[in-house]
């Protein structure tokens, strides 16, 4: 039962990543693209966790944690750059 549920969740998260990627390519403004990247990394993190549940292995957990941390830093850096034109002043 868990394997089937994880398959459904992986399908849904894959669709979510495809939608976010579409917004990343299309986005009328650069802010839309930043939001799309933010969504992409959170979805990638959720997909790695789901994949770990499906295979009953804790191997993917560290990758998910690293993606979550670096993703926040990159979003903060993008937003700072858009606000000030520089990241470290």
């Amino acid at each position: 039962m868990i394997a089937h549920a994880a398959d459904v969740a992986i399908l849904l998260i894959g669709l979510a990543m495809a939608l976010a990627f579409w917004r990343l390519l299309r986005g009328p403004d650069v802010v839309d693209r930043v939001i799309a990247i933010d969504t992409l990394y959170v979805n990638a993190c959720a997909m790695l966790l789901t994949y770990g549940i499906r295979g009953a292995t804790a191997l993917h957990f560290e990758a998910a944690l690293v993606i979550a941390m670096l993703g926040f830093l990159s979003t903060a850096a993008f937003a700072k750059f858009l606000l000030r034109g520089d990241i470290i002043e």
Partner: protein
Amino acid sequence: MTTLIEAVVALLVVTGGLFSFLGSLGLARLPDVFMRLHGPSKATTLGIGCVALASMIFFTVHEGAPSVHELLIIVFVFMTTPVSAHLVAKAALHRRLPARGSRGEGR
């Protein structure tokens, strides 16, 4: 693993996937930047929270020892998502992106 726990884990995983999908659907379909910011920053956060909770329950039962390191991801994501959404909203205001229903350019 008992059927009840399997059912709870399966339900949490599917709910998490559904919330992630809805958040990204909002990102793809809503008409302006400020609305598009809402979908991912709320629904997707709840989605990853559900998936991490399911992972916590699953590995606690699967390995027979409490597995709390998924709590790290939950706490980290729930703390950082509002901060990044605030920063991105400030950037959007700074660039004077048009909001739907506003007259002319600006806010």
